[in-house]
């Protein structure tokens, strides 16, 4: 690598690290993970910075128009996939569970409708990564010899419509892993609407 290119790369990595950490692309994640060929990484970072900071694609305006994830969202999902060993009491392919997500300032409460709305209880609660027009709502916990992992990718369709792509995987905790295969997974997707009242 030529010296002037090296200095440029150092400057860009530093600026990119700070800019991406502050940009809201991955809110609350202060460090970028730099892997791969440095020149390829540099090019990618430059491209992303160009779009993110100059707003040539209007992403900032789009994000503002779609609005934040904060709010109460309700609707039904369609269960589209499940492993063969899914427990009888859990969701199965074809089920249409009703879901409510309440997002507020980087955290969320997820509820499933039984007779009434019941919160999905996970230690530490659900965390939210608010991206441009979408993001992630996720939680994981280990308790009583089991681990479970709730992950929802969300994408705004308009300010009041949210597509949700949910995965739930569970299995034995590390201390009980040798007890045998018990891991299972289920996937669901659907459209939630913003509740305004």
């Amino acid at each position, binding site marked *: 690598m030529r010296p002037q290119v090296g200095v440029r790369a150092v400057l860009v990595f530093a600026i990119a690290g700070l800019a991406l950490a502050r940009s809201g692309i991955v809110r609350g994640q202060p460090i*970028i993970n730099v892997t791969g060929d440095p020149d390829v990484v540099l090019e990618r970072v430059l491209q992303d910075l160009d779009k993110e900071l100059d707003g040539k694609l209007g992403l900032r305006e789009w994000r503002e128009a779609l609005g934040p994830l904060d709010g109460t969202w309700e609707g039904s999902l369609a269960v589209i*996939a499940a*492993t063969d060993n899914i427990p009888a009491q859990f969701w199965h392919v074809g089920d249409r569970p009703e879901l409510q997500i309440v997002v507020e300032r980087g955290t969320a409460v997820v509820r499933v409708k039984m007779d009434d709305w019941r919160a999905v209880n996970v230690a530490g609660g659900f965390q939210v990564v608010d991206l441009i027009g*979408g993001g992630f709502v996720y939680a994981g916990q280990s308790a009583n010899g089991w681990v479970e992992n709730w992950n929802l990718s969300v994408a705004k369709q308009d300010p009041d419509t949210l597509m949700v792509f949910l995965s739930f995987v569970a*299995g*034995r905790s590390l201390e009980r892993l040798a007890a045998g295969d018990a891991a299972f*997974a289920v996937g669901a*997707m659907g459209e939630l609407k913003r509740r305004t009242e």
Partner: protein
Amino acid sequence: MRHVVLSLSLALSTVGSACGAERDPVFDGVWEGTLEIVGTHGSGQLVDWLAEEADETEARLQLRGESVQVSLGGRRLGPAIGFRIAKYDAAALVYSASVEKGYVGSWQLSLTKVDADTLLVFAWRVRSSAEGEAVAHSTAHALSGQLKRAPSRRGRE
């Protein structure tokens, strides 16, 4: 010159954080196998990690501490911000986001250990395109399957 020194220290701290990750015997290693496409949403447009009309794809995860590399169909996925991993005991979430050519894309891979050398994976790939006036169109693919730990070339992982 002072700016260059400041930038150098910031850059080194950034890169160093990625390289100096703690080793994790639970998840560290190379995991390989096949993921089946178990669901789609939106248009059936082709994606660069899936061969035409294929209903499954080869997958490879390389995990080392907080460092994650993901390859599908022999192609390494390379969002500029990299993949991140959050772990909970025998489960983990790998996720990333990228901005490219008018699309905002995200990956989430939910991982759970089946045994010491097997991972159950359920993944979602979501892409949203903006068409102005605050209306977006999304496509999504769901993938699921088990990955096996590949033998380490050094026999230490």
